[in-house]
């Protein structure tokens, strides 16, 4: 025969095993359980029945954990965005290292063709990975529990325009990102051409300004765009959208 205290401890331990339930949540729910037991103490039931009844009123720990998980989904999404930006910066850094390496190695008279070949290949591969990672991330975000769920992407953005004209800035930035991506992709294609006629070095020099501007533009507009998505998501959750 277990005492109430033992049962409560067992129940609490089971609750703490569930993801998304921390010490504070367990304290709060335990307080509730104790009050329920206190209320039931007036009834003509055996201790075991009282405990089972009180426990069942609170619901199954796994289901409760799921509810708290939903609650934390916003921060999980922020984490996803963090990974995206982190991934972008990582790939971008690799890209720049390849640029530098190609210049250094060409200085120590390696066969220039080989250097260009490897640089161009890595550039194209990393750029493709970059596009895929970013589009996948963006797709995940708009697919998530965000403004005007269950409508198409276009409807969603146009509805945001309609109710929140100031978010138009977000769409302009989205356009900037899209154009920059297209430009970058075009740049990779052009590189293949130049690589095939062996004028890679000249090409790199004349495009340095363009290269720097796009390198700065993408992370900047991407960050603003993501902030816009988060903001829209919050407005929606607060019922303003």
């Amino acid at each position, binding site marked *: 025969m277990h005492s109430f205290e033992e049962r409560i401890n067992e129940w609490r331990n089971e609750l703490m095993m569930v993801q998304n339930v921390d010490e*504070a*949540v367990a*304290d*709060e*729910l*335990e*307080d*509730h359980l*104790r*009050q*329920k037991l206190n209320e039931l103490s007036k009834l003509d039931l055996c201790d075991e029945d009282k405990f089972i009844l009180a426990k069942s*009123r*609170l*619901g199954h720990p796994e*289901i*409760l954990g799921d*509810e*708290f998980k*939903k*609650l934390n989904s*916003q921060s999980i999404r922020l984490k996803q965005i963090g990974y995206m930006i982190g991934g972008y910066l990582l790939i971008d850094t690799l890209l720049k290292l390849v640029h530098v390496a190609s210049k250094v190695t060409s200085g120590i008279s390696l066969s220039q063709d080989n250097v260009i070949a490897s640089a161009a290949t890595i550039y194209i591969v990393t750029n493709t990975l970059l596009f895929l990672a970013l589009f996948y991330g963006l797709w995940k975000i708009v697919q998530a529990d965000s403004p005007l769920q269950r409508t198409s992407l276009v409807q969603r953005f146009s509805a945001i325009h309609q109710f929140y004209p100031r978010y138009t800035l977000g769409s302009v930035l989205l356009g900037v990102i899209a154009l920059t991506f297209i430009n970058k992709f075009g740049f990779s294609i052009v590189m293949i051409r130049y690589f095939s006629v062996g004028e890679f070095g000249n090409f790199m020099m004349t495009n340095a300004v363009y290269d720097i501007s796009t390198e700065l533009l993408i992370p900047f507009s991407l960050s603003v765009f993501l902030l816009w998505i988060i903001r829209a998501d919050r407005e929606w*959750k*607060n*019922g303003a959208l």
Partner: protein
Amino acid sequence: MLSKDLVAASSKPLVLSILVEGESYGYEIIQKVRRLSDDQIEWSDGMLYPVLHKLEKEGLVTARWHVPESGRRRKYYKLTTKGKKGLEQEKAQWEVVNHTFSKLWGGAYA
């Protein structure tokens, strides 16, 4: 007994409406809802807490831990200014629903 969907939809305005009367905690909120609805609105008690935490996260309520004389700490929730505005919005929306049904069921279109 109210359907699950309706219980979920009304939980936010119910909690806000109870807290507008003053600070309270989970168990007390549930008791009030049960009493006011003549036992027609029955929450699974545990489900109230994610709702309260969500409202806290949205800044509609603030929470503080208080240790009563009985010894165990208890979490109390209080409406914020933003929460009062949120309640006004909720009220306006529910009144639209209520108004529409009154017209429909009041015989005007029957």
